[in-house]
């Protein structure tokens, strides 16, 4: 009996004591954890959604590279508080997911390692990135990250309501190309369907209003930032953009009192014509359009944000990337492991692109396989006209919150446009001049 108890204990101790000579690669990411569904899946083609595909890709990498032990640290989105704390404690992970808009902040403080040598070792050329992806990770001639994707705000369209409103021609949605046309389409839509044209986030979540405001300013040829220390929101372009957003809302062309979840639900229930949301929702809405009981049944289309102000054909984009925080203790073996990991992600970028995000590589954008995915050919142009916010602006994350908060206050009528723009600029400048 004693042996029966002791034997497993000794085996356990032996296992604990056994040395693991694999190279440890600490990978920190957001996108959630879904071990119950995908913990044992190492074929990315059998996974769906951001979390599922990311988990399966990492499982696959581990299976293909038995000499590397991947320690996967999943963090709550976006994870920058944890990363900053880890950098302060001199214990950063080897690779971290980071938005393109956040790279400048960490790069300016010399907290990121340029990936040029690692990518050269991995055989990944920045020339293979799409222009939008390249703009997201390049600082001068330094490559600060390996792009995972590019994403952008899109117009998700309920074609069933558009048909009813008479806004479909040759099976394609008719989209406005000027503020006046936008107003006319919205009126026509409301008259024929009894519903608002626009579904957008109006409360609590400020990312949506921020992106729309930036988009309208950029479409007018305006620059949201003058230089690294000064924003430029209180400009003629800012006035026109925010005034237009307010007019749409005040004239009843938009839903009201919607947070993010509410706006998505409202669109899925067929309570509005156009939802402004990101690339990540393409898969969900495509799936909904294939269900007979859905308001989107056989009636979903997606398009780039239309050029309402025609001075520039441009679209705001951001992206997810792998970056390598500086760590003097990182060994050559870990660098080599990181190079193989990045190469693996570059090679399997098509699988990630099934999430709805844009691939980061021109070869995939041009491939028949990607264009055969639902709706991708309708939005592919964004990889050419997509433009991130200026690289010289740091602290973009808190500034984005301010821009969204003030824009939301203005178009919902809580503040005048003038006051909101003044406050937006003052608050942003305080941040830009605080370091």
């Amino acid at each position: 009996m004693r042996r029966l108890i002791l034997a497993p204990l000794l085996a356990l101790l032996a296992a604990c004591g056994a040395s693991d000579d694999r190279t440890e690669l600490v990978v920190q990411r957001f996108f959630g954890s879904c071990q119950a569904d995908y913990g044992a899946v190492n074929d990315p083609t059998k996974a769906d959604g951001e979390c599922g595909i990311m988990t399966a890709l990492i499982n696959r990498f581990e299976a293909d590279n038995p000499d590397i032990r991947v320690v996967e640290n999943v963090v709550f989105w976006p994870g920058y508080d944890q990363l900053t704390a880890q950098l302060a404690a001199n214990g950063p992970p080897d690779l971290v997911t980071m938005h393109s808009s956040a790279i400048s902040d960490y790069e300016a403080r010399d907290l990121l390692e340029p990936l040029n040598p690692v990518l050269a070792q991995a055989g990944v050329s920045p020339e293979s990135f799409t222009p939008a992806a390249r703009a997201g990770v390049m600082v001068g001639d330094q490559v600060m990250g390996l792009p995972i994707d590019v994403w952008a705000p899109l117009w998700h369209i309920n074609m069933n309501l558009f048909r009813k409103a008479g806004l479909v021609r040759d099976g394609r949605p008719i989209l406005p190309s000027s503020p006046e046309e936008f107003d006319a389409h919205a009126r026509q839509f409301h008259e024929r369907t009894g519903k608002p044209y626009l579904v957008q986030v109006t409360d609590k979540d400020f990312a949506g209003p921020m992106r729309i405001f930036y988009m309208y300013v950029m479409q007018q040829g305006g620059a949201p930032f003058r230089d690294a220390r000064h924003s430029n929101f209180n400009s003629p372009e800012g006035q026109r953009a925010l005034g237009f957003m307010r007019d749409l809302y005040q004239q009843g062309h938009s839903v009201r009192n919607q947070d993010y979840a509410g706006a998505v639900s409202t669109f899925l229930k067929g309570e509005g014509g156009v939802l402004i949301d990101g690339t990540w929702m393409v898969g969900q809405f495509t799936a909904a359009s294939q269900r007979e009981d859905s308001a989107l049944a056989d009636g979903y289309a997606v398009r780039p944000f239309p050029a309402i102000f025609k001075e520039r054909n441009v679209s705001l984009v951001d992206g997810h990337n792998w970056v390598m925080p500086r760590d003097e203790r990182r060994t050559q073996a870990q660098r080599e492991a990181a190079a193989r990991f990045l190469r693996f992600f570059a090679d399997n970028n098509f699988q990630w692109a099934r999430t709805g995000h844009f691939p980061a590589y021109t070869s995939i954008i041009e491939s028949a396989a990607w264009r055969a995915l639902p709706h991708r050919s309708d939005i592919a142009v964004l990889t050419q006209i997509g433009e991130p916010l200026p690289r010289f602006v740091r602290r973009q994350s808190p500034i984005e919150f301010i821009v969204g908060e003030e824009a939301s206050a203005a178009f919902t009528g809580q503040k005048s446009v003038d006051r909101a723009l003044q406050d937006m600029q003052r608050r942003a400048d305080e941040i830009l001049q605080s370091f």
Partner: protein
Amino acid sequence: MSALRRPPPLAVVAVVALAVLMLVPMLWVLILSFKDNTALLADTASAFVPPYTFANYRNIMGEGQVFTWLMNSVIVSLAMTAGVLIVSSLAGYGFARLEFPGRKILFVVVLFGLAIPEQAVIIGRHQIFSALSMHNSYTALVVPGLSMPFGVFLMTQYFRAIPVEIDEAAMLDGASRFRIFWRILLPLTIPAQATLGIFTFFQAWNDYWWPLISATDGQMYTLTVGIAATQVNFAQAEGLGFLMAQAVFAGLPTLIVYLIFQKYIVRAVAGAAGQ
């Protein structure tokens, strides 16, 4: 029970109605936790009609590290509760009963601690633990919580409320100061200890910020940090049922603690209120 002490029926109805009203959000969370995420994404009103599912709870249980995080939370909360009770009792006794130079000033300094928010000290605290290479350890998670000015203040006031004649009588009988503290005064402070213990346990259990930046290794996550990390992006829309199941799962241990110690907790709160 005499007729005089029986509460009026209207009051009973009002209390029951208020209790139900208070339970509504919790019931809403519970119902949502048994619904499919896709159905909730389309319409949260689907919560009122079947089908219901355990999938969200299965997904939580299927997360390999969830029980590690649960155990971390239990260890940290219990250790912090025990530590706070020991430190606060000793300090409270000292301030209430002992004469030493600077006692009043020191007590004022402790009271100042009540007015200093965690945000004001957290960077300095993080730097200290970084310099000591102590992040990602139970020590780092527990030790900062031991300095609880509220606990010292509460215990000081409680010890002060106990007649000093009790100490004098015990001294006449030859009891040492520690014996008086341990055998006589400390048992009299049980209601305050229970109140402080409950308060500390729940605070430690629910703490998010410090564990977020100190326990950055997934193996050292507490439950609050761990379950937040498992959320997919835009979980409020795409994973609402899972989000609610997480809330139930995270709250369940505290509910169990309450059910087990219900009698003591009610007595403690009633006793503290009567003081």
